[in-house]
């Protein structure tokens, strides 16, 4: 616990040092958020009845997506781990007194959290102060707000569990950028990062909601805004829990096989 706190503090300091970078990153995300909003508004104007969510729901989706980007997108992976895998240093990692899967999992979690924290706070602060209708509104009810936090946590867990698959994939193909880009492309589309899932044709949307990708950001964000009504909160969260367990178990199996292979072949 203390180690994690120390990592946070060091990361924090390092980020403040790069002032232009911090400001630039924030500005960039604001711009993207704005442009997405303008894009959707244009579509809304052209055919209001076809719009699958309310304006308020759209705004909260876009700003939550931007603010929590680092916690919902698979792209931000620890490049050093990928480097270690490709260079064949996995054998060294196994000498630690800690299970490899958990070790990398925790590293992945803390890395994302440390970076997300700095981006999230100012972005939400400003988004909440924007004029209507662009403003980020609070959750639709206290229940939804709490459910959102739980759902977000589970979604984050799923993201990191998926990241473990990325590591395993890199191990087997020894191609870090290729795997990363491919997974990012898939996930962006299927998880609702490029376009919220409600915009997909109904049949496809239902399938996507059942896949683990749909449980990363789609579930928590739609709970927040109330697009997922009260009675559907519990099933949604249970599905997320299901994926947490399945991906965790599956990932551990994969890692066990990977480790066996390392022990026989080395690196």
């Amino acid at each position: 616990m203390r180690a994690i706190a120390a990592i946070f503090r060091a990361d924090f300091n390092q980020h403040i040092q790069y002032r232009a970078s911090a400001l630039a990153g924030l500005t960039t995300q604001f711009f993207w958020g704005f442009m997405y909003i303008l894009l959707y508004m244009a579509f809304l104007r052209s055919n209001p009845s076809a719009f699958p969510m309310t304006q308020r729901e759209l705004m909260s989706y876009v700003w939550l997506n931007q603010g929590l980007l680092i916690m919902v997108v698979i792209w931000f992976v620890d490049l050093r781990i990928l480097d270690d895998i490709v260079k064949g240093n996995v054998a060294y990692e196994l000498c630690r007194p800690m299970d490899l899967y958990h070790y990398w999992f925790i590293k992945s979690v803390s890395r994302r959290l440390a970076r997300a924290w700095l981006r999230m706070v100012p972005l939400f602060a400003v988004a909440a102060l924007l004029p209507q209708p662009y403003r980020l509104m609070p959750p639709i009810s206290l229940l939804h707000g709490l459910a959102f936090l739980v759902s977000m946590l589970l979604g984050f867990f799923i993201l990191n569990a998926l990241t473990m698959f990325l590591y395993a994939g890199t191990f087997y193909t020894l191609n870090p950028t290729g795997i990363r880009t491919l997974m990012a492309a898939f996930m962006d589309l299927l998880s609702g990062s490029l376009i919220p899932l409600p915009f997909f044709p109904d049949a496809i949307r239902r399938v996507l909601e059942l896949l683990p990708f749909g449980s990363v950001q789609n579930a928590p964000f739609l709970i927040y805004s109330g697009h997922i009504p009260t009675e559907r909160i519990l099933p949604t969260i249970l599905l997320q829990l299901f994926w947490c367990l399945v991906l965790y178990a599956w990932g551990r199996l994969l890692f066990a096989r990977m480790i066996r292979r390392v022990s026989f072949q080395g690196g």
Partner: protein
Amino acid sequence: MLRLYTKYLDMNLRAQLEHRQSFVMMLLSQALLAFSSFLVLQILMQRFGSVGGFGLDEVMLSFAVTWMSFSLAETFVRGFDRFSVLIANGGFDRVLLRPRSAILQVLGSTVDFSRLGRLLQALIILILVAVRGPIQWDFLRLLTLGNMLVGGFCVFSGLFILQAGVTFFTTEGLEIFNIFTDGGREFGSYPMLIYGQLMLRFFTFVVPIALFQTYPLAYLFGRSQNLGLVFLPLLAGLFLLPAYLLWRLGRRRYESTGS
């Protein structure tokens, strides 16, 4: 000069082919990313039918032109996109130690052929639109299309060069350019008009993306007979001027203060 550039192209290609598996994977990933964006476009257009008064074909053309010119710029002007790496590892010192144009050397330092994956994807879209029939193709229209690609190439290249110029002054905060490069590509997939008058004006006079997609689009689809639109995209080439000026300014500074 051309001889040296072709040598650079040759060396870059061969170096990339050395890692064939990586190269192919990158190519496919790029194509996939482009396809993803196109899927989004399709999903939205199918659901809403039109946007800002533009139909599917017009949007598809906008997408194709923007992505094609972006990937061409990304392939051939990548040296400027990755300029911060060159500065950081002292490579630019080496550039200055050679009796050749710095710009030529930076261009030649990295030519990323894997980015052509996006080009391929966008080309397919372009062919689809061309074949579907809504455009009455004639010489002037083909010329317009060519100009649109040239204009787009100039704008995105200009952005990369601008970014490199800024790198001389600071290596932090460069991600802001991402707004105009990646952002320009993603949001330029749709005619700039749909984002409202303010955005249209910005993307006409500041970063002239609209000059090579929104305006000439009207001519291509027969909604306007104004011949000026055929050559309007070339005006976007003026964007290279401020980019080049900033580069020169930055370089003077580099020669004054070192790395």
